[in-house]
């Protein structure tokens, strides 16, 4: 059945409207945006990684002089800021953006243009933060930016401004993406898919987004206060003017701890999906998973003061937060139970994603359990700002979050690029990374027991930490080699063009494996009818292994042999550009630039509101029809 073009009120196209470089700028396709996020995230991961290597180089020997104390603080701060806000976050949004809408059987997210604008906010935020190196020096007050060290008096330079503007944009990106995902999950699931039979990853996305929307705000407000303190001479955080230095810490950590779960939940999601797929079993205890996710969402609101046990809040307060913090271990351990239950009786295939997932399990045990020690307010009086903490949270941040995300990245790589990974390259890379990781961070736990503070740029030979630090530095360089091998494996897969089939691993259980790799522009030529708990698996067991389409009259996005697509738009790029210019206006600070950027933003929003965004029809390819 052909489309009668002259009768349509929307244009009909044979090819997608957003191909080419200009198309990339104007795209609103969640898949392209996801890949942009991933690429950006890996780029910033390399930047943050080089900074980590500098740190380890400086600490390799006592009284080392690779970099000065000032530079060290800059590198340290940039490492934390870049890794958390501009490496981990975009990699997560990249994976979620690509996979999640397909998994729930949607053709795009709820607000495609907003999705692209989120990407611009994140990219320009990262650019601004890193540009500080070339604008009078990067920020050196720590990624937590405690006042008064981050105030105009003690950090007068552009670096702190760049942190505030850049991270503010990064947070804005996270907020907008999260709103987008919540609405997408609530409103755009394929017919037949209820909330309780969504793929596990969708549940994790939902809670991650809810946490990001709610917890991000106090931090954004705090940054706004600090901007006012710095630019307009107010005294929110200046004790001399009636302000309070602890106000920053409260607002920061009300965000800062849920942020850990915002980053961790996606990693748990990837591991859950990977283990279930390669064990050949559904996730064990779906209801427990939903309960555990929700419990983490609630408990994450009553843990923030465990970062502040040493501010003199008093025993009753501290004790309340000890209980809240330790309570989080219950839902966290439930995930372990769920994974073990999933593996039990399964037939686990040790592919590359499974390597990362299994490594993640063990490192997550260590990261979580060491966290239980410093969750005790008494013990934390010794561990606060000590290398034990650094060891602990890197076991969570790399062992838990990065390994989990790499499991997801390697699992969905064939789906996202259309090419299979070469496991013969990937697996040695995994082992180097895994060993290097443990070699780096296990000694740091011991350094903590031996009383070494964190964030020191040097130490004395007689303090006795030299050997451990040397080992740690060797491990850091091993990790770098592991990451390089991983990147080589990714590049090799694209260059060697080993085409992936729709069900690339042959173990797919959810909808993304029912469509070609890489996914076509419209995801689903015909909207799939979800008939079971695991949509594709149900068809494999009870049907012919292919998704049944919904009846034509229920597929509102499809007409004839064409599918409705959202219009590409340059307006997100215009708004993003305005934010970039205004952002630099704030960094320098330069009022003209700020106003000029603001005008561009306003024009972009106006254009956004007025442009024709009704979309177009894209003709479905023969073989996919």
């Amino acid at each position, binding site marked *: 059945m052909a489309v009668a073009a002259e009768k349509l009120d929307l244009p009909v196209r044979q090819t997608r409207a957003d191909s080419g470089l200009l198309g990339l700028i104007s795209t609103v396709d969640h898949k392209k945006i996801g890949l942009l996020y991933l690429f950006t995230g890996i780029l910033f991961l390399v930047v943050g990684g080089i900074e980590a290597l500098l740190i380890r180089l400086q600490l390799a020997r006592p009284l080392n002089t690779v970099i000065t104390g000032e530079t060290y603080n800059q590198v340290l701060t940039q490492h934390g800021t870049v890794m958390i806000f501009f490496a981990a976050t975009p990699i997560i949004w990249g994976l979620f953006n690509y996979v999640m809408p397909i998994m729930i059987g949607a053709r795009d997210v709820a607000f495609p243009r907003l999705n692209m604008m989120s990407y611009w906010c994140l990219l320009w935020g990262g650019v601004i933060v890193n540009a500080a190196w070339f604008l009078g020096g990067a920020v050196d007050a720590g990624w937590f930016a405690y006042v008064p060290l981050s105030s105009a008096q003690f950090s007068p330079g552009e670096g702190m401004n760049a942190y505030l503007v850049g991270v503010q944009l990064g947070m804005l990106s996270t907020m907008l993406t999260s709103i987008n995902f919540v609405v997408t999950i609530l409103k*755009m699931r394929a017919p037949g898919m209820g909330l309780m039979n969504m793929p596990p990853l969708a549940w994790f996305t939902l809670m991650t987004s809810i946490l990001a929307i709610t917890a991000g705000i106090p931090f954004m407000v705090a940054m706004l206060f600090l901007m006012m303190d710095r630019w*307009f001479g107010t*005294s929110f955080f200046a004790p*001399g003017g009636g302000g309070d230095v602890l106000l920053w810490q409260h607002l920061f950590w009300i965000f800062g701890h849920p942020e850990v779960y915002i980053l961790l939940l996606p990693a748990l999601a990837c591991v859950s999906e990977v283990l279930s797929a390669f064990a050949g079993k559904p996730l064990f205890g779906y209801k427990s998973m939903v309960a555990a996710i929700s419990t983490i969402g609630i408990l994450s609101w009553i843990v923030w003061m465990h970062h502040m046990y040493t501010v003199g809040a008093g025993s009753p307060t501290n004790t309340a937060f000890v209980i809240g913090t330790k309570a989080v271990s219950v839902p966290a351990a439930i995930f372990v139970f769920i994974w073990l239950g999933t593996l039990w009786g399964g037939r686990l295939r040790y592919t590359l994603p499974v390597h990362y997932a299994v490594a993640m399990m063990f490192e997550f045990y260590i990261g979580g359990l060491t966290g239980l020690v410093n969750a005790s307010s008494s013990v934390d009086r010794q561990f606060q700002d000590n290398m034990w903490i650094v060891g602990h949270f890197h076991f969570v941040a790399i062992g838990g979050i990065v390994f989990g995300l790499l499991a997801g990245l390697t699992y969905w790589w064939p789906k996202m690029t259309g090419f299979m990974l070469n496991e013969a390259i990937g697996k040695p890379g995994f082992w180097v990374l895994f060993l290097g990781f443990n070699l780096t961070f296990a000694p740091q736990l011991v350094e903590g027991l031996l009383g070494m503070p964190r964030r020191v740029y040097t130490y004395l030979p007689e303090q006795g930490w030299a050997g451990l630090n040397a080992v740690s530095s060797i491990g850091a360089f091993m990790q770098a080699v592991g990451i390089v091998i991983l990147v080589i494996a990714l590049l090799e897969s694209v260059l060697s063009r080993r085409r992936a089939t729709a069900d690339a691993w042959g173990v797919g259980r959810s909808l993304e494996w029912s469509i070609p790799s890489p996914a076509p522009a419209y995801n689903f030529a015909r909207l799939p009818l979800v008939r079971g708990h695991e949509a594709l698996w149900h068809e494999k067991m009870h049907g012919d292994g292919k998704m049944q389409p919904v009846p034509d009259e229920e597929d509102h996005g499809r007409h004839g042999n064409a599918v409705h697509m959202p219009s590409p738009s340059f307006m997100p790029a215009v708004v993003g550009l305005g934010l970039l210019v205004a952002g630099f206006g704030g960094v320098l600070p330069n009022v003209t630039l700020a106003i000029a950027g603001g005008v561009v933003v306003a024009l972009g929003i106006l254009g956004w509101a007025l442009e024709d965004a009704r979309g177009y029809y894209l003709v479905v390819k023969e073989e996919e029809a």
Partner: protein
Amino acid sequence: MTTKAEAVGHAAGHHAHAALDNLKRGVWVFLASECIVFGSLIGTYLALWGRSTSGPQPHEMLAQVLPETIVATFILLLSGFTMALAVHAVRRGNVGGLQLWTLATIVLGAVFLAFKIKDYAHLVGEGWTFASNIGATTFYTVTGTHAVHLAVGLVWLLAVLVNSLRGRYSSENATAVECAGLYWHFVDMAWMVIFPVIYLLEFAR
């Protein structure tokens, strides 16, 4: 059997409808996050309450603008009522009512904003500026954020008014108005929290 042209018209209409449906849910989620914005701001106001080290104390200054503010508060309450009437009208297909009540809401909101600007001008004229002391800073931050939200709401309502004059709304197609209404009610309710906390609490000491 419908003809093809009708079917296509229906499909395109459906995309618009689905997008608006998403928009409404999006506004709800957005307003949830806005609650936390104002929660954080008011929390900060309370945390730093009574810590002004120099300059005129907030209660001395706010006493000077309290009578106008009470009047303005009633005006804003009234605007919430007219907004509800506007949404009610469009749901029943009464586009004339929609235009009338939207206009009334805009006028009332603008009057409220005018009151605020007058108050600010008065306070700043008395030398109580943004950075005078922590009481002033938090006062201007909380009420200023609210005023900015209100101004955005006015622009939104103006757009609704223009679109309704262009015949965009009907009883089936009222979601855009409902979204604007949700936002306006939120701004209205935020003030109902801000007013007692900021203006009345000062005198309870």
